[in-house]
Each structure stands twice: as C-alpha cells, then as structure tokens.
C-alpha cells in the first residue's frame, strides 16, 4: 500500500486529535512526505500567514517508503511556513522517529492552532493524546526525550522534540529526534515552539505492508546490492562520512572561509574527516568513535564522536563526556572554517549543544561568522556582545555564543535571529551570506558555479539539499562537469531539483542518489504503491512539487528579485585557488533557468506550465 491512507489532525487550540482519510488523489500527484505535505499546506493555509502565528500549520510527513525495507527508508519531513525566510520550510530528518510514526499507522500529522499551555503529543498506534508538558518546558532535547520515555514506561517510544532554542524563538531552531537527528533548517523548531508543542512521542506496532510484497522485496534487495557495491555508498560514506569533503572542497578552492571573505581555509585538515580518525595527542583516542545508521539504512554515514575529556570546553562538564552525534561536513564548516576555528574538539562541543537544544549549526555558525566580521570592522562592539571578543578564530567566542544562544541569553538572543537580521541591524546587510534570509551551506559559488544558481533558486532559501550539483561538478556523479563554467548548469540544476523533490517525497535519503539513478528508485516505489510510478511520472511529479513550492513562495510575497546572491559572491572575486579572479556568474544562468522551467522572465510559472503539471 505504501500509504496507510490515514492522517492525524491535531487542533492545539481546542486540544483535539482526529483521524482523517488521506487524500488519495493528492497522494497520486505528490507521492508523499515533502510533496504531499506541501500540497496540504498550500490548500489549508494562507501563504501570507505569519509563520509564528496560530494560523500557520506544522506538518510531520512520511513517504511511502518510510518504515519499509527499502534502504534508507526511514525519513520524515517537517513542512510549514518558515520564520527565517518567510518562504516554505521543509526540513528532512533520519533516525527512527519517521519509521515509528508509520508503524503506528499514520502517513502524516497536521498540527494547527496553538495550545494555551505547553503540551506534548503521544501517539500509540491509533490512539493520540495531548499530554501536559509544563515541567518539560525549559528542558533540552536531551532531557526531554528520556523523561518522556521514562514517564510512559516504554524505552521503545521514539521522540521528536524541541529544545530551548525552539521555545526561545531562535529563528533557525530545529526539531530533533533520537537525540541527534535533526529536521534542522529554516526554523521549523521555532514554529513548533510558537504552538507550545514540546514533543511528539510515538509508539507503533502495526508495521508496513507494500502494495506488491514480492516485487518490493526483489526491488529493495536489488537496490541494496547497488549501494553495497558502489564505492561511495559502500565504503567512502561509512568510513569517513560527509566530512571527507572538507579537504576536497578546500583543495578545489570552494571552501567558504571567515564569512566568505576567502575560499580556502588553512585549518581545514585539522577539522576534516581524516582528522576525526586520528588519535589525539592529548589522550591517544580518536574523536570518531564509530559510524551509525538511521532506520533501514545500509550506508551508515552518521558520525558518533566523543570529546576529549581534558578539553577546556568539557573539562568540568562530565555530562558531555559521552559519545553522541559528531560533526558532519556542514556543521564542521559553519562552526569551523566560516569562523576561522580549527579546533575539532571545540566544534564537536558546539555541535553537541546544537543537538542538545535544537538549533541549526549551519545558520548558527554562519551568523557567528557574520558577527565576527562586523566586530572586526567595528560595527559591533564589546558593549553589544557583553564583553565577548568576537574575533575570527576565537574558540572561546564560539563556544560562549553557542551556550548563550541555546539559553536565549545575552548576545545569543541576537545571534538566534540569524545573520540577515543581525547584519541589517548593524548597518551592513551585504555581509549577510544568505539567500531569502537563510544562511549558505559549505560550498563557495565562485568555485562551484552551479551552486550559485542552486542557492538563488532554492525554494527554502540558501540550501545544498535542493540541488546538489556538487555531485556532478566536483565528484563526477552521475557525470563530471566543470565547476568553473556556467554552460549547461541551468539544466543541471533543474534536473537535480526535480529528482531531489522525488527522493524527498518518497521516504528515502538523498544520499542514495550517489549510487542509485531514478531507474533504481522507481521499481521500489512502484512495488510499494498503487498507481503509475514510472521514471517519467516520478520526474514529472518532482517538477510538479518544485512548481507548487514556487507558487507558494510567490503567493507569500517573494519575487524574482529574491532569486539572487549576496554582493560578495557577485562582485568580489575569489582570491586563491582554481577560481581565483572569478565571481559567480548568476546572471548568465538565471534567465536560461527560468526559460527551461517554463517560467516568465519574472520567474512566474506560465499558465502553460501550470496546465502541463496539473497545477
């Protein structure tokens, strides 16, 4: 069946939980998870809604392969209007929570309104109950999750929750499940906090049954064989995780450094995936303890780290001596290279705090980097920071601000609003390295041209996970393209965007695409779901989802003027490396992209395009 055909609607204002039939026509047109929940959001809310008002809705959605035997089939997404960007927000997480929701018999949960008092939602198969959470408010994710499990006397319950960042209105607060898996970007946790919803705890015992079990078994076994035999998904990612990119991206001169002033970081090696394997001089142990898989995943790229107990950040804090989620490439970049810090233990500590209290290390690190540049030029003073010397490379500044942002105290309150608002307040909006208000990830668009178009057109603000052309431009997957040229990049970006929308709507992890083509994915969806899920129809579905998100953003007030990049990337040339002398040539790519998309020169889908996509 793929879908259970059932959604849970929770009215937090009234305190009610109701089961509804899933709209099967929408499921056939939007597949699940990202696409299907976006359809519900578009139909049920005004795109101009204040993201932090009770009128906004928050949707937790699974895909048809979530909770199935498909490799990586454990993903869920949180869809809402985001407070960081005022655009659609869609954040995807792994771990085990999504599969548990599916096992309980639900395809998605729609939360609306606002509770008068803090509550958490407990779902046990068909039963859904709102429970008081007054005593959990003010607690971290790491306190909330075990407390709920103990209170409900079931260690097998899965919990997704917000920490203090979500409660305190950090505009890039995330939602954390399984202690360190995150629906991390765009501030979905702030929306959850605005509704006085602390957590959703789930226990499911129903399992999952595909439409054609025999065909599904055959298709998923074939898919796992491809992943195992592929050198990237079978060896590279399990061994080094995403962090293997630190040296790659630095070497090609696309490593954003010190708020994107530079494109190469001399401390990259010290915070790389290779460094995580090296025994520390202090205690002879490596930062990396092991790798870890999410539900059903046969890649297992996750990093589990342990901080040196003698490191100054944790020396008197034994509560941080345990193994937990280590830095991924994006976190290591934002907390490290972007702030000019090459202390792996400090980055791991900051990353722990981001998980513990639920905020996005990308946006946080990038905002600290912007603040450091403002401080060094004198726009921010010691009076503003409360005495914190905010210089690039200052480990103390980073870790202190991480603690303050988690708690919503001092200068941490300003850091919690993101770099766009920070740079505007202090008179230098051009220094905010954002698109549509969301901070960039770890690829400099002067050295990887396609990523400039990816960022400018991403429906949720600057993001690498909407169109990862790095795969092609740097790694040669599925085929190598030149990162320094713009020719062909409009089509490449569009193809990546549509294919990624499919994967994000299926319940799979986007990392399968390092080994799987759509020809590997389609048979698995086809066997799981009723209907036509040919490659052709899947890609049309992906294009439909992309255009639906675009329509939502245009209705929310976004225009083509928002499809741009900060002046630094368009006017200030890279100073070193292969991209030396280059800026991002967005102006060459964007018109072609609009044309390929079937949009007007103002970036609006034409009626012909909308008709073709049944929008």
């Amino acid at each position, binding site marked *: 069946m793929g879908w259970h055909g059932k959604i849970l609607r929770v009215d937090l204002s009234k305190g009610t939980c109701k089961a509804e039939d899933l709209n099967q026509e929408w499921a056939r047109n939007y597949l699940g998870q990202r696409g299907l929940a976006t359809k519900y959001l578009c139909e049920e809310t005004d795109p101009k809604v204040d993201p932090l008002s009770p009128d906004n809705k928050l949707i937790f959605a699974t895909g048809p392969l979530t909770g199935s035997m498909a490799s990586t089939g454990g993903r869920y997404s949180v869809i809402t209007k985001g407070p960081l960007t005022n655009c659609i927000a869609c954040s995807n997480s792994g771990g085990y929570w999504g599969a548990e929701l599916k096992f309980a018999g639900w395809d998605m949960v729609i939360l609306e309104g606002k509770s008068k008092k803090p509550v958490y939602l407990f779902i046990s198969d068909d039963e859904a109950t709102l429970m008081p959470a007054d005593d959990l408010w003010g607690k971290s994710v790491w306190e909330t999750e075990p407390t709920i499990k103990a209170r409900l006397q079931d260690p097998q319950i899965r919990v997704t929750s917000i920490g203090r960042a979500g409660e305190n209105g950090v505009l890039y607060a995330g939602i954390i499940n399984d202690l360190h898996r995150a629906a991390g970007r765009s501030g979905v946790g702030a929306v959850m906090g605005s509704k006085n919803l602390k957590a959703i705890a789930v226990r499911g015992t129903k399992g999952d049954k595909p439409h054609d079990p025999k065909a599904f078994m055959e298709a998923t076994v074939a898919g796992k064989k491809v992943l195992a035999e592929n050198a990237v998904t079978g060896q590279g*990612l399990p061994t080094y995780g*995403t*962090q293997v990119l630190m040296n*790659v991206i630095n070497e090609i001169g696309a490593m954003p450094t010190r708020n994107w002033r530079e494109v190469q970081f001399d401390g990259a090696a010290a915070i790389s995936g290779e460094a995580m394997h090296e025994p520390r001089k202090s205690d002879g142990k490596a930062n990396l303890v092991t790798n870890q898989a999410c539900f059903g995943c046969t890649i297992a790229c996750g990093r589990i780290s342990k901080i040196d107990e003698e490191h100054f950040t944790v020396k008197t804090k034994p509560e941080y001596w345990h193994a937990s989620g280590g830095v991924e*490439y994006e976190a290591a970049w934002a907390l490290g290279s972007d702030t000019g810090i090459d202390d792996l233990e400090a980055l791991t500590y900051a990353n722990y705090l981001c998980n513990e209290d639920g905020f996005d290390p990308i946006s946080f690190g990038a905002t600290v980097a912007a603040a450091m540049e403002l401080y060094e030029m004198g726009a921010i003073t010691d009076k503003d920071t409360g005495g914190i010397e905010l210089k690039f490379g200052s480990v103390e500044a980073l870790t202190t601000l991480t603690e303050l942002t988690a708690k919503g105290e001092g200068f941490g309150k300003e850091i919690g609003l993101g770099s766009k608002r920070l740079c505007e307040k202090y008179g230098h909006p051009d220094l905010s390295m954002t698109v549509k208000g969301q901070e960039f990830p770890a690829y400099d668009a002067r050295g990887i041209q396609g990523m400039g178009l990816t960022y400018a057109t991403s429906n949720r603000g600057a993001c690498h996970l909407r169109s990862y052309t790095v795969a092609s431009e*740097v*790694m040669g997957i599925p085929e190598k393209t030149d990162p320094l040229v713009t020719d062909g990049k409009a089509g490449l970006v569009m193809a990546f965007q549509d294919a990624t929308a499919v994967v994000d709507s299926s319940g799979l992890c986007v990392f399968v695409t390092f080994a799987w083509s759509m020809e590997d994915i389609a048979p698995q969806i086809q066997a799981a779901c009723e209907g036509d899920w040919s490659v052709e129809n899947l890609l049309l579905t992906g294009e439909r989802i992309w255009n639906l998100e675009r329509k939502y953003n245009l209705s929310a007030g976004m225009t083509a003027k928002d499809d741009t990049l900060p002046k630094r990337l368009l006017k200030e040339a890279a100073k070193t490396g292969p991209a030396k002398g280059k800026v991002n040539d967005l102006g060459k790519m964007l018109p072609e992209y609009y044309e390929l998309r079937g949009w007007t020169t103002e970036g609006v889908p034409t009626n012909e395009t909308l008709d073709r996509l049944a929008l």
Partner: protein
Amino acid sequence: MKITLKLFALLGRYLPKDATGNEAVLDLAEGTTAGEALHHVGVPGDLAHLVLVNGVYLAPSERSGKVLTEGDALAAWPPVAGG
C-alpha cells in the same frame, strides 16, 4: 623536481613514511606525469577516483599526459561524496 603529494581518505595508506598529515613532498624526475607519480607511490589507478593538480580536476584519460612541474600539488581521493 619537487611536488607535494596529497592522498586522502582510504588512499592515505599509500603516503610515504615521511608524510605529515595527508601530505608528503616527492622528489621526482623532470617530465614525470600525474599518473606516473601516483603509480610511483603505489596508488592503484582504479582507486584514484578524484585527482586534482593544483585544485583542478584531471580526468582519468588526462593523467598519463599531464606532466607535473616544480611546486605542483597533486591530490587524490578514492570515490567519495558527502553533503
């Protein structure tokens, strides 16, 4: 002719003993190509998936023809990806 060899991830095992971190300086004969330099330290050709000279990508078909020059940085990785 001296060049800097950088071998990352699982290719790190092919670094010379005097390597620092993931880097080593190689003293090679004039005219040595990128492919020959990798072969010199024992890197199997099929494991060198991503090869860069001074940060610029070198396709497999170009490795035997790319003559290195003094001060070049030759870097190689097995198949890797991230995100």
